[in-house]
């Protein structure tokens, strides 16, 4: 089993039970010490994995809503959109987020009477503005991990959001999804 932070062999396994859901974090010796997770007090799952120093490159690519200027990091921070058009701007990863919150990802209820079911999308097509160029990935101890597939980057961003919103069950699910996508070679 690999460390959730640095890809080294994990030796510290932490399990938290939140709302009856088990969430596990696997860490290597060095990372667990660095995060202070071996001390029982003050252990926060959120800080333990995915602290700022371990952010992936997806975080530095700032998506901005053209209509109102709201940014992806603001969305992540407050969990709310800036304007109706934001739903188009931040469409990537939205389905995953909604799946965790709701019964489905598609609206089946009331519609304004002037909107028939076949009306094309009202929202403008997504146009992402890249504000900051992605810096090279931070140096990682031991073998540097293979470049992340875009899917993984997206999942990581979702994972980040889930952790910041303390939705640990979702975080656990996303984490295992990321694990299943990660190449098994780098050991």
């Amino acid at each position: 089993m690999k460390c959730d932070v640095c890809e080294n062999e994990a030796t510290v396994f932490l399990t938290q039970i939140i709302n009856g859901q088990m969430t596990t974090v696997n860490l290597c010796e060095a990372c667990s010490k660095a995060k202070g997770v071996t001390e029982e007090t003050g252990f926060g799952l959120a800080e333990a994995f995915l602290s700022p120093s371990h952010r992936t490159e997806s975080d530095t690519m700032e998506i901005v809503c053209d209509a109102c200027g709201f940014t992806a990091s603001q969305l992540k921070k407050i969990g709310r959109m800036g304007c109706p058009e934001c739903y188009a701007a931040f469409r990537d990863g939205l389905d995953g987020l909604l799946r965790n919150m709701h019964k489905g990802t598609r609206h089946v209820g009331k519609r304004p009477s002037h909107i028939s079911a076949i009306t094309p999308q009202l929202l403008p097509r997504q146009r992402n503005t890249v504000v900051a160029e992605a810096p090279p990935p931070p140096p990682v101890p031991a073998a540097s991990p293979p470049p992340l597939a875009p899917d993984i980057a997206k999942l990581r961003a979702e994972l980040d959001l889930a952790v910041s919103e303390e939705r640990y069950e979702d975080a656990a699910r996303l984490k295992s999804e990321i694990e299943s996508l990660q190449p098994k070679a780098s050991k």
Partner: protein
Amino acid sequence: MMRFATLIKNPADWMKGAGPHSDVVMTSRVRLARNLRGYPFPGFSQERQRIELLERARPVVEELPEMRDGYSEDYTELSKIRKQVLVERHLVSREHAARSSGCAVVVDRKQSISIMINEEDHFRIQGIRPGLNLTSAFEVVDRVDSELEGLLPYAFDPKLGYLTACPTNLGTGMRASVMLHLPALVLTEQINPVIKAIGKIGLAVRGLYGEGTEALGNLFQISNQHTLGEAEPEIIAQIEKVIEGVVRSEVTARAKLKEDHQTMLRDQIGRAFAILRYAHILTSKEALNLLSMLRLGADLDLVGNCDRSLIDMLLLEIQPAHLQLNAARELSPEERDSMRAELTRARLQSIDGPGSFPTNQSTPGGTTSTPNDE
């Protein structure tokens, strides 16, 4: 338009009327979150944008057939106490009351519909009915919503539904909630498993004033959390089914208390009445909890000549802002506690109290015939 004093002087429709299961279900509320295209959500907009939206939308809202001749107020015109009174009456949310410039509320004459402008969303349309009657509450807001959609350009996406500031409201934008009075489930310590079971099926349980508030007075709010992927009638039918189950549990627990623990029950209700009737200092928390016991007593016919609606009105009148409005000035917490007691004593004068009831048959350990001289 109606004045604030007129609005408050008259009890709301839902306070007087009794609805299905009124002994357990205080109110049913449904709110819809709606937004306009082309404006940022209130939490991310500038003051002038909020004012612009308000100036455009408020006259339209005031002219809706249901809202005509109702009460409408800009928040810059409302004192802190008046806003808090509206919160205590569940006409506006705590979050909305904390805002000021660019916000307004419009309430219909019967106080059964309120429309908050520039809450977390541009519009929060709320309907409130007595007892368990979410369907009727939904019909009301649905009608108002359909009228409004023809007059203002809603932000709607065919796949995502009504677009809301928070993705947790996306889709129907509907939150249906009921306020329950569950003293017997609390007394018999069955409340925690019930709350847990409700949480497991995706409904939220909260205290008296919404998120993060304590369940004072054995009052609990239950509402849906999912708004996307299900149609409004389905969501409402599911909640009503769950609530009917909770109502049955509460009624069973009440019957069992009356049957098996009559002395304890009479003791609790008697003590509650005695304190409420004669105390000179009453904190909000104590009053709510004692009134809950008195309401239970009234529902079980253990308190003579006690009308449930008198207690429900008192539950409102003893709240901090209502007391201050009544006194026409700001009151310190100590002053409030003494005025709360004064008001409660006065209101309970007309009640015979639990003592006036003869203890039917022989109570265990009853020594009524042989006086105990010690």
